[in-house]
């Protein structure tokens, strides 16, 4: 989520160089700076042209009302690009590639900021889809049908889907190693034996790859021109920038500076080609593939650690400019997409050995000192992560000012990759994209946020025979009247039927969105950077990657589980609550039913407490959901796989899910990721981790989002930071695939005062004593808030 410029939590370290400080300040001065990476639309100039695909964004309910406005306003402001001769005679992929190349050669602005050492400014664009009139008609009709169909499901809170761009790791190391010249040579070799549509696809790859040197040359020319006007050290820097831009990304990189510049160009152009720019386009294991360049430079005395650090810091500012796309628009219109350009640090090698290196440590320094939103750091933790590195990570967590620092755990993540079929010998080289979604590097498009299914909605449908309680609409199948349920199996079979209907309903539209993109929205440039596309002569959008999945993320797992558990325990087993009473209370949203609601909240087991009663149900729900989606494939051949990112849908869908048998009222947030319902996990983080582990998450190879909150007192000194580090090491064996550690601050405590039920698990600890915050008297709460706010 974008932070307002200059918000106090984004304070850099006081140790930044003057150059880096200035570059960082400039980024934060959105309102006043001259360079802005605001979106520029480029059109073919035809009357029917389109530059924005609404069906890419149907996974974001908050922007649904604005999709058509975006499409129209981008088009209205579009600059018409002079087309190369014979443009309309080419097949669609070649048109797309030629249009991309044309934009790079002229219309796309070239900007070098004062003092920067890594260049490449403008990348927020919306490129023409390059469709003919006939193609546009088919495209627009299908796009509209998808938007309407997904919108209807989303409006009932069933879930959403879309053909979302990005969310993959391009094969950047290959660009550094071989340059686009090497990639071009490989395309040409494959082209020699290709015919028909395959040849057209490969031709489009060739055009896209060959467009890169001309673009870099424009930066070289600009650098040389600025050098002529500059003097002293800056003139030399600009001359060096010009030299580097004449070499990369076309030629292989030799030095660390060349590697970073090549990497940024390659990445920036993915953002251009995907025309959002693409969210979740991630860097992968950056400390692994950049280290050989730095190591050589250091050994040869070509650079120092300090110089390398400043260069990295210059690089670090660049991905943040993605947020200029939202610029003035975003703040008013509620676009809250976060770009999630992940960098992955640390992690194991093929034999379980740790792959951390000096660059890992240098990057941790950069992350801490820069304190920027992007690129987002994920650290891979495994059984043999060295103690000092884990200690350092724990310290960073303890002192994080708000920058989410995510941990991915190798053993659990690799078990999922293995389950989905990645060979055992290759599974170690995974990395996350977007937030925490596990994929392979360089040859994998797993559509990690494409489908989001609300598991809690299936509970509502189960209890009201497939009807949406708010509108009365019959959505799912008319399963048995819940008043006839006598056993857990009766309840379970009805739930399964509703869940499978949700899967059918959402995947039907995802199939269409994926197919539409495969048919009419090729991305030749990106395809040159995804392993498998050249070999198969297929665009990445048409399942050309070596590994192709579409991820179905489960939303509100814990809310669904606790609801099923409450019915099982209190209605079917104990008989303490009758089904008619429960249904009446749910219909009334618990108005006048507080006693019953309290029974549901307090007298049934809850997931997240290492309680086998609840965790067994959780495992059944998770396995059933993930194993069912695994049976499905899109017509493009991409297979569906499960996961639990869940993003912020627990908020968006809160008003759309009726009161639930766990005692939740309509409107109260649904649970997030694989975490417990807010406040329901009262046994602390070890129990919470074990509940997550018990889900058997290998069947959700995407991985899961698990967040724990700790009071600042728990990381108050070196002894306690050690304990946190030990907890993280144990989590690798006892928990899930990914973890975010939040510190409970004064604001959280104040929220706990206002909404105690959501914070029942909030422990306040002082030596020798602990208490649930919400059970303390108001006066004591105020005292603790005052204390935590002062960081004590």
């Amino acid at each position: 989520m974008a932070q307002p410029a200059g918000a106090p939590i984004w304070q850099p370290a006081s140790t930044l160089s003057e150059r880096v400080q200035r570059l960082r300040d400039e980024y934060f001065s959105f309102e006043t700076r001259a360079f802005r990476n605001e979106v520029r639309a480029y059109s073919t100039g035809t009357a029917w042209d389109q530059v924005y695909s609404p069906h890419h964004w149907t996974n974001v309910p908050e922007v649904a009302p604005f999709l058509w406005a975006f499409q129209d306003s981008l088009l209205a402001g579009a600059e018409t690009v002079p087309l190369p001769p014979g443009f309309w005679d080419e097949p669609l992929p070649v048109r797309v590639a030629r249009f991309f190349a044309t934009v790079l050669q002229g219309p796309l602005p070239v900007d070098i900021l004062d003092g920067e050492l890594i260049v490449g400014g403008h990348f927020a664009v919306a490129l023409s889809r390059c469709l003919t009139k006939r193609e546009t008609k088919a495209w627009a009709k299908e796009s509209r049908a998808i938007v309407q169909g997904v919108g209807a499901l989303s409006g009932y809170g069933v879930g959403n889907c879309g053909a979302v761009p990005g969310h993959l790791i391009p094969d950047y190391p290959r660009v550094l190693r071989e340059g686009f010249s090497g990639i071009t040579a490989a395309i040409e070799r494959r082209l020699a034996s290709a015919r028909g549509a395959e040849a057209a696809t490969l031709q489009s790859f060739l055009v896209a790859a060959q467009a890169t040197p001309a673009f870099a040359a424009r930066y070289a020319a600009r650098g040389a021109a600025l050098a002529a006007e500059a003097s002293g050290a800056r003139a030399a820097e600009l001359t060096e920038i010009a030299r580097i831009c004449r070499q990369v990304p076309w030629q292989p990189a030799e030095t660390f500076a060349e590697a970073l510049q090549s990497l940024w160009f390659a990445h920036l152009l993915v953002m251009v080609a995907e025309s959002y720019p693409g969210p979740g386009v991630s860097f992968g294991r950056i400390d692994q593939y950049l280290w050989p360049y730095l190591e050589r430079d250091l050994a040869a005395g070509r650079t120092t650690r300090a110089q390398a650090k400043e260069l990295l810091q210059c690089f670090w500012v660049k991905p943040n400019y993605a947020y200029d796309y939202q610029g003035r628009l975003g703040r008013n219109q509620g676009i809250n997409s976060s770009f999630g350009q992940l960098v992955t640090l640390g992690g194991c090698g093929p034999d379980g050995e740790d792959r951390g290196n000096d660059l890992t440590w240098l990057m941790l320094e950069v992350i801490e000192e820069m304190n920027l939103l992007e690129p987002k750091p994920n650290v891979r933790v495994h059984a043999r992560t060295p103690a000092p590195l884990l200690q350092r990570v724990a310290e960073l967590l303890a002192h994080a000012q708000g920058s989410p620092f995510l941990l991915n755990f190798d053993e659990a993540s690799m078990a999922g990759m293995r389950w989905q079929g990645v060979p055992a010998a290759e599974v170690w080289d995974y990395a996350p994209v977007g937030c925490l979604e596990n994929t392979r590097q360089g040859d994998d498009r797993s559509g990690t946020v494409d489908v989001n299914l609300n598991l809690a909605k299936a509970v509502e449908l189960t209890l009201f025979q497939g009807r949406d309680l708010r509108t009365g609409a019959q959505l799912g199948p008319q399963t048995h009247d819940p008043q006839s349920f006598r056993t857990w199996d009766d309840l379970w079979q009805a739930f399964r039927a509703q869940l499978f209907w949700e899967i059918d309903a959402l995947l039907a539209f995802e199939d269409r969105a994926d197919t539409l993109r495969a048919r009419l929205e090729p991305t030749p440039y990106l395809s040159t950077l995804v392993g498998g596309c050249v070999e198969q002569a297929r665009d990445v959008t048409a399942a050309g990657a070596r590994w192709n999945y579409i991820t179905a993320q489960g939303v509100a797992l814990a809310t669904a589980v606790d609801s099923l558990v409450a019915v099982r325990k209190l209605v079917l087993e104990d008989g303490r609550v009758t089904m008619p009473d429960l249904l009446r209370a749910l219909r009334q949203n618990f108005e006048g039913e507080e006693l019953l609601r309290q029974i549901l909240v307090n007298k049934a087991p809850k997931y997240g407490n290492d309680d086998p009663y609840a965790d067994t149900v959780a495992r059944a729900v998770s396995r059933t959901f993930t194993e069912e989606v695994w049976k499905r494939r899109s017509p493009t051949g991409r297979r569906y796989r499960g996961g639990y990112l869940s993003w912020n849908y627990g908020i968006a869908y809160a008003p759309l899910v009726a009161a639930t048998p766990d005692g939740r009222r309509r409107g109260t947030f649904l649970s997030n990721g694989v975490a417990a319902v807010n406040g329901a996990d009262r046994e602390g983080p070890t129990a919470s981790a074990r509940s997550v582990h018990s889900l058997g998450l290998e069947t959700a190879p995407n991985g899961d989002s698990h967040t724990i909150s700790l009071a600042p007192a728990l990381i108050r000194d070196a002894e306690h930071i050690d304990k946190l580090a030990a907890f993280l090491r144990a989590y690798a064996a006892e928990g899930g695939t990914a973890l975010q550690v939040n510190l409970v601050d004064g604001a959280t405590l104040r929220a706990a005062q206002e909404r105690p039920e959501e914070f029942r698990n909030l422990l306040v600890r002082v030596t020798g004593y602990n208490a649930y915050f919400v059970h303390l008297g108001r006066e004591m709460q105020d005292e603790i808030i005052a204390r935590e706010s002062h960081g004590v």
Partner: protein
Amino acid sequence: MTAPSAQIAAPAEAAPAPAAGPDTRGLIFGLQRFSTEDGPGIRTTVFVKGCPMRCPWCQNPEGLAPGKQVLWARARCLGDGGCVNACPHGALAREGGATRVDPAVCQACGTCADFCPANALEVAGWERTAREVAANVLRDRGFYERSGGGVTFSGGEPLTQPDFVAAALDLLGAAGVHRALDTCGAAGPATLRALLGRVELVLFDLKHMDPDRHLEQTGIRLDKVLECAREVKRAGVPCWVRTPVIPGHTDDEANIRAIARFVKAELPRAARYDLLAFSKLCVSKYEQLGRQGAVVARLPLVPRSHMERLRAVALEEGLSTVVWSGMTAT
């Protein structure tokens, strides 16, 4: 000293005590996972019910009485009074917006707690076998192994249920779990000795070094506690000494200096001295027990500077590792 309103004694049907073993039953009032304040690493702390001391600042007053007690939390109570009818013994009444538990009548059978939809009524004290406690503790062994943590038996005072604690410690020791005993030393040396052979660490509380004030504040003679401390020394078990720093009770420099001297002289194996600043978090527990006018409600917090000063005093006396923690006034 305020006498605790021991609302209910042990169950009436006192069966003959079984020999200490996995099936030995005990009464605990808490089992806290991810405990980070009661010894090294990540631990599970088992709170054993019953304590012979009666310190007016007690942080866990629901752990003092040896038997089960019913607690009532005003903050959670919905006030519908259904519990009054639910009680099979007629021990509950609603008076002036509060639910009163008559300790003379209450059998602590738990019917009201099961009934109460909001869990405003709860029973402090759960009967568990040593085997059940050990099984619960073992759920987090993966975290103990990687953090150098383990189990801590605390309370209350674990020495009040020595057979049960010993049986649980044996099971956990056999499983390779690091074991700690948190004791106030108010027990016979023989009782203590039996447990010292079963733990890897003792957390030993020393509250006051003035015999009169110790007796006055805790209800127990100081020499009894010091005898236990010497027993720890004789057994050669590593220990951490801990002092609750309570304003007007234990927080004077002279007291801390005297404790530090004793530790230096008599407990050479003490690896660490902890000064625990008084926190007021326990006030609501006194209310839940139906005890009005608890001393803790009137006590101020210790200034941070004073905790620093006390730490310096202990260091002056030659202790090498002195740690203070807890809530302080700024």
